[in-house]
């Protein structure tokens, strides 16, 4: 704890009045604007320190890495955490590591870092394809994969990618670490099964097997917006050309990312044809129960989910050069 910066930092001038606080105040102001509610700011430099802090104040604490979701919410005072634990200075959390057939992204890996990595492109192609849809370049430069997963916005791309690829999320606490399957991680709108004393330290994916077909489809009002409807799709064909496995993982259609399991089951064992895809698309439209909001109606989202299904499946098949 000795090295961590722990200050009442919500108001820049409060901080500036304390010894050594001025630089820190400038830094905070730059990130937050000056209209956030008051909070205590902690910047642990080791993982152990962070976990200890969480154990002590987890209930009132919010983890910050890139701050791309948290800070805007605080600036308009929708979120008023009493404590911010800034993990950005912790060493050793910013790498992409490959071990046997597992690829692990640390908690501080940014979207841009993942986007530029050949490991992502070659081993987790679905993730690679999702990257350009995440916000804008400036957001991808600061935002992190794990931050997006822990934030669990149902209209964001990465939770759906994690769900499509059966990723595992690594949660650490002073009690040790555990792996949480993606399907058990997203529990509701902006909420996860992470415990209050747990920090998401990484996410791991299986390396894509040879012949894995992937597609990301998204409709958003403007370039870089959250999705009206989005789909991450994975298809595996068997040697006889039938669908061996399928994942249709949607975002923007429910309070969590969600798989169209009925449609997936109908795909498995079938021969991929445009007629089949038509049927699957209708099935998806019927299976999903999306919300209405000012950007699109529920009917629109149901319809568009079907359209994206057709497009994603066709996109996957175009990667084999075979579509009958």
């Amino acid at each position, binding site marked *: 704890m000795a090295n961590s910066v722990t200050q009442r930092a*919500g*108001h*820049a*001038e409060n901080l500036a009045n304390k010894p050594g606080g001025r630089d820190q105040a400038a830094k905070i102001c730059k990130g937050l604007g*000056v*209209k*956030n*509610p*008051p909070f205590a700011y902690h910047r642990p430099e080791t993982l152990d320190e962070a976990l200890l802090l969480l154990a002590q104040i987890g209930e009132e604490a919010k983890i910050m890495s890139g701050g791309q979701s948290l800070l805007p919410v605080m600036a*308009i*005072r929708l979120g008023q955490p009493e404590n911010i634990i800034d993990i950005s200075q912790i060493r050793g959390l910013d790498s992409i590591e490959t071990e046997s057939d597992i690829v692990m992204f640390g908690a501080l890996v940014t979207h841009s870092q993942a986007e530029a990595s050949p490991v992502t492109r070659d081993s987790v192609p679905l993730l690679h394809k999702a990257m350009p849809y995440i916000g804008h370049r400036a957001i991808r430069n600061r935002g992190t994969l794990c931050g997006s997963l822990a934030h669990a916005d149902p209209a964001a791309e990465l939770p759906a990618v994690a769900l499509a690829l059966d990723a595992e999320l690594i949660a650490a606490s002073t009690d040790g670490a555990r792996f949480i399957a993606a399907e058990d991680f997203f529990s509701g709108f902006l909420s996860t099964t992470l415990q209050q004393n747990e920090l998401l330290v990484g996410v791991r994916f299986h390396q894509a097997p040879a012949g894995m077909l992937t597609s990301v489809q998204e*409709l958003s*009002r*403007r*370039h*870089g*917006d*959250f999705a*009206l409807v989005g789909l991450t799709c994975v298809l595996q064909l068997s040697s006889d050309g039938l669908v061996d496995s399928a994942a249709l993982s949607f975002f923007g259609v429910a309070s969590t990312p969600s798989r169209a399991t009925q449609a997936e089951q109908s795909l498995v064992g079938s021969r991929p044809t445009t007629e089949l895809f038509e049927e699957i698309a209708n099935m998806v439209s019927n299976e999903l129960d999306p919300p*209405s909001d*000012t*950007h*699109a*109606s*529920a*009917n*629109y989202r149901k*319809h*568009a989910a079907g*359209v994206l299904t057709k497009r994603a499946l066709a996109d996957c098949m175009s990667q084999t050069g075979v579509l009958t």
Partner: protein
Amino acid sequence: MRKSLAKQALNADTNAPAMGRFVGQSVKRVEDQRLLTGNGTYVADVNPEEVVHASFFRSPYAHAEILSIDLAAGLALDGVIAIYTGKDIERLTNPFAPLASLANQYTPVFYGLATDRVRHVGDPIAIIIATSRCIAEDAAELIDVDYKPLATVTNHREANDPTIPAIWPKNDSNVLYEDEKIYGEIERVFARADHVFTETFSCHRVSNQPMETRGAVAEIDPDSGEITYHAATQSPHLLRWILAISTERESVVESLKYLATNRDRLKKFGAGAKAFLTEKKDDLAKNDSTASTNQIKKDPSTLAHLGRTFFNTLGSRRYPRVVAKDVGGAFGSKGAVNREDVVLLAAALDLNRSVKWIEDRSENLADGGQAREEDMTISVAAKDDGTILGFRVELVMDQGAYPAVPFNCGLFSNMIKAMLPGPYRLEAFEMKMKVVASNKGRYLQYRGPWANETWVRERMLDIVARELAISPTELRQKNMFGPEHLPGKMVTGPDLDEDMTAAATLAKAIEVADLPAFEVAQAEALTIGRHLGIGFATYHEAAPGPDNFWESVNPGSDAFLPERVDAVLGRDGSVSIKTQQLPHGQSHETTYSQLAADELGIAIKDVTLVYGDTDNTPFGLLGTGGSRGGPVGGGGVTFSSRQLRRLILDEAADLMEASVDDLDIIDGKIHVRGVPALSKTFADVARAVTSRGQAASTANAIETHVVYSNAGNGGWACSTHVCWVDVDLETGFVTIPRYVVVEDCGQMINPAIVEGQIRGGVAQGIGAVFYEKTVYDESANFQSSTFMDYLIPTAMEIPEIEIFHLETPASVEADFRGVGEGGMIGSPPAINNAVENALAHLGVRITEQHLPPTRILELAGVIEAE
């Protein structure tokens, strides 16, 4: 450039300045170095010593009575200096009195803060002054207000429903203004028609969204009491006047006493007022004298408020110096005086210290300015052959809760009325106008405040063309004023001169569009399920319009239109132009310098534009707005600079013992034509003038000015927009593969700046059609408080916009016509027409301007409407 300059000088055989060095060229913006390197000075950059910060506490309710306000917890917070509520503001300020009311209009009397009830989400209830903005906002969260919710008025239907109580009880109803004008023999014309087509169009509410929100710093010198009001404003003199009359609370008797002891001031005011009244007698006589009587009948307190306005105008000691340096856009929203301005200044005066308020984006979206929410029902009388005889139109405008100060929907509805016939030859026209109040944010002027006249007309012409099986372009050409009909007159009154070239822009657009080729491509595309469309829209815009334009809008208001421009030779030989214009993105520093430099034979960098300081600029209430910066301000710069040139040459002639007719100025050097070696500089002239002693007591060597209105021709900017669309009926997404604007704004001062204005306007039109919508739910709860809810198009959403200029040879000098607003006027109808053209085979008729993906699929029958 040098070469052509030399050539011009050689050929010059008169004393006319070497025109054309800069005017007409895409000279790089002189503002850019400062603004793009972060060296601009916006109001947020102004930080007087000991400044404290304000935050407004705003209503979460759309309509509610305020039962009680508990400030104790907020006041107890460390760092909070004061909190003022409506009760305090009633004590410290005068209410906004109706300064620009029309006959048949009720304009509410109201204060800067809500006093007894709140009327929309975001209505300011209290101002918190604290040592930081953060603390002010912390305190805002601790204010406890007890509300009693009231029935809300959310739309036109409810506003017209007599069973819903009036949100301004003195008016008895939510209809604030109703009027009707008939031009020509409307009954007879409709009786003669082979067809009458009727349709109702509905435009959604959008919001002026400049990059910089509103904001101000009320700087008070605690010792002298001197007030400097730094503001993000379009019109500093207007702001100054309204602040002065709003914050002076001395009694009339005290005001008179003050005037009696300050006779100089009274004399100065008296002389100014007398000159104005004498000069403008005829204009002012056109005012409808019943306007005030109706208003006073409904609310007798109006009389007292107007009386106080009069005395305060003469006697207020609260006239601040208003200063604005760089302003980050406005689109009309900073032309009005904000309620917050008066509250901020009142608080600063009461505390005797400087206070700063910078609006945040959520506040701006809720109450920084909203516009365009209008319904119009139009009937068109037409002959079988496509001849259009007349229009009958009923308009309803939704003003929101509080009227803008001083110009509001009553005036804007009359602008729509004046312009709705467009460049078409109608025999008769009837317009019924209604303005209603609702529990929504303020309706303000937004880039082309009358724009929906073009939207409705150009949309309707496409519908008429379809019904009559005539091509939309042919129908337009058949009915438009062409060269053979000019000079002419709009059915609503304004004169049209030969330079009104709407028909020429349409002809050029038709040529560029190559319709036969498009129709082949459209049919082919349809066979593979692609839906292509094309849409046209033509308009002419009073920029600034002919002498009798404002008579057709609101008789009497033209008294305020002429604009003074000062041209000054400093004691050091420098040249300054002083204007009441307030640049906020229009590039005045560049274009005015181009004009002055050409007149004076100097370089652009040698001209300084002085603006944004009421102590040091000529008086004018309009500031920058109404596409006047080029034609009125620019014309004024031309002629004041020319006058200054003449005065400089007169002095130089004495100095050089030469005839003034033999003198020329090249690159800032004055010499006898053909003898460039012997020359005098402007500094030499300035020195000669000041050493003679005449100007010894003044700050400058030579000062001169002109008061300028227009170039003397029609002042019509004309344009045709053509939009191509590709509609994806699987997703409802629309792409714009091509967009063309053909325009004629007379003589261009700087083509790059003209094109920038047009492209920006088109982008906002694309925004309005596909992205931007200010949403209130059925109980008037505000749904668009962030940029995740209110979608502004980015560069990624805006296509390449091709621009073709028709620069008709000027029949007059300084034939600059405004282009600030046109881009936004022409684009929504062109886009809507293109979408309808793409979906026409499905029987789609577009009557709502806003077309997000959901709406496209609903219209096309792909999904069901909810």
